[in-house]
């Protein structure tokens, strides 16, 4: 009885699930926002602030799409510096980075908060952005900043060498694969059929 059920139902179902179902592709749609808060600057509380001759701007990811299967590198945006002076300008403040996710489920939250320290000039930088290295889970999708320059810090480069620092992160899916869910469902269905037939015969 059980072998016949396996042959007639479970095995073809398993084969069908394994062959027909596509390889898992957890498509993640997200965007980022950043807020710089600082004392002694103008524009505090926005994504672009000015310290005297220096302007620091966060360029967010407006519409990122990645396949987190199970993990992928992704960008969390860029920080751009412009400065018209060769004199060093000290910077201080915080930078709050948030994620807004629209797929596979909708959700948003703060990813990490960084501290700005050091100084910048048009041709010199000792400025770093140090994060706490925390993670954010939105409906089974986990975000974590990565690719730090050292420790948990990103360094900011001066305008004379480009002035752009990209922030990288890892996006990881902890959602179960469709194949797993299909096989599990077929297994339970098969067991149900067997139990039902046994009870009817009894």
């Amino acid at each position, binding site marked *: 009885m059980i072998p016949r059920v396996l042959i007639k139902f479970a095995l073809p179902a398993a084969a069908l699930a394994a062959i027909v179902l596509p390889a898992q592709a957890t498509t993640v749609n997200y965007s980022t926002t950043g807020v710089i808060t600082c004392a002694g600057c103008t524009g505090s509380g926005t994504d672009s602030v000015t310290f005297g001759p220096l302007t620091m701007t966060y360029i967010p990811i407006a519409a990122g799409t990645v396949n987190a299967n199970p993990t992928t590198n992704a960008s969390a945006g860029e920080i751009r510096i412009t400065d018209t002076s060769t004199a060093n300008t000290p910077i201080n403040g915080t930078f709050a980075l948030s994620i807004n996710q629209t797929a596979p489920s909708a959700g948003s939250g703060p990813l990490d908060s960084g501290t700005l320290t050091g100084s910048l000039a048009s041709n010199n930088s000792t400025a770093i952005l140090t994060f706490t290295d925390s993670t954010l889970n939105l409906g089974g999708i986990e975000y974590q900043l990565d690719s730090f320059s050292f420790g948990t810090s990103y360094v900011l480069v001066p305008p004379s*060498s480009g002035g752009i620092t990209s922030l990288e992160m890892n996006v990881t899916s902890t959602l179960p694969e469709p194949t797993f869910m299909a096989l599990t469902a077929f297994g339970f269905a098969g067991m149900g059929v067997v139990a039902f037939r046994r009870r009817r015969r009894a």
Partner: protein
Amino acid sequence: MNNGKLGGLSLKLVVPAIAFAMALPAHGTMVTYSTTGSFSASGGGSSAVFTLGANNATLSFNGVTNATVNASPMTFASAGSIQVQTASTTGVPLGGTFTLGISQTAPSSNSGSLLGNLTGTVTFSSSSGDLEFTSTALTLGDVTYTLLAPGGGYELVPPTTNNGVTTLEMMLAVNNPVPEPTFFALTGFGFAGMGLLVFRRFRKSV
């Protein structure tokens, strides 16, 4: 007599000299450099195509040209960026080496390179691409360039985020800082003042 003379001298010469020296612009060791990149997969070009069957992915290095930074005693700087371009939905494996060339024209003319290994795969929307350097420090004259590569290497992002661009950061440090012009100016004025005093004393004694 000497006190009077010295006081006058201070007012007439030393104080303006110090003011002049203070007015000199802040100065460090200006380093001018450029970077180039070459992929072994392309036979040494700055752009390489990786293939898997009919799928392919292109990696391009965008270097820094004649960047001038004040590296005294140190500064962060860019070494360039790498862009991933592909429309493939199948993971295209990366491989081979990437050589980062640094050409310095000031304060001295030197050049050298650092070698990295490419690993991982990329699709248009996912990437495990990684660039890890076997050595991260290069000294050219009195300037040491240190790549600030993360522990696992630079992580390359897919084209669907930030247009596939990953920046490479480094640190420049001067090993034997050149004395600043302010130092030379003050020292020069000091010796000139001493010379003047000696000359006046010598003339009076004659």
